[in-house]
């Protein structure tokens, strides 16, 4: 596993992070943002349950971010 970001930021002045790297492909980033924002802001599953699942998934996949 690398400790160096493998893709540069597409946003001038910003370091590589999830949003600035995704910005390399604006169409993908925009559609992901639309889906993910709706997933979190609306829906039939309560926010607490979603957050528990998100945190558990991050641990299982060993994602420290």
């Amino acid at each position, binding site marked *: *596993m*690398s400790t*160096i970001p*493998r*893709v*540069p930021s*597409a946003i001038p002045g910003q370091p590589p992070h999830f949003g600035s*790297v*995704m910005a*390399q*492909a604006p*169409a*993908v980033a925009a*559609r*992901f943002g*639309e*889906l993910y924002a*709706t*997933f979190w802001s*609306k*829906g*039939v599953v309560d926010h607490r349950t979603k957050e528990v699942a998100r945190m558990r998934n991050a641990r299982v*996949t*060993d994602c420290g971010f």
Partner: protein
Amino acid sequence: MGAFYAANAAMAAGPASRRIAGMAWFATADETLPSFEGWLQHRPELREMYKRFYGAPWDDRLVPRDLLELCRLRIAGLHACEAELAITDPGAGLNDEQRAAIGGWEGADCFAPAQRAALALAEKMPWRHHEIDDAEFAEARRHLTDPEIVALTVAMALFDANCRLRIVFELPASPSAAVPSATGPLH
């Protein structure tokens, strides 16, 4: 960590009968739609957004289609996901020899360098994503632009997610030859 991923891979390589049983855990929301899309139709708003997200690499021509198809099928093979393997993009430009060799691509000589670079990333995406190394990523960047790399990596994550969804919900295969698109059916 290696043992964890080995255990997952072993499960994926286990009896396929469970994954092709053809009986979903719950009913489709719309029998006129392909099984995967019919399941997503339980949340129509999210279904439409997911289709726009999933279809972007094809609709906007963000990544060469042969690379998308190779990575999709390799990831489906690693998951032993019969439902995903039943789908074909007829316009991907792959020949029969290449399609037959995807499972053993590392020892095959029918793939171009860019295809091998993409397959090397796909090989580790489902169970060994922490093992993708700098050399493999650098090789991919020799053949693809940064926007293409980002779009392909996102697409691979979605291929992985789609397989997991199909397997968890025991979705039956809907064999089809279709171009993925936000405006077409999602098989």
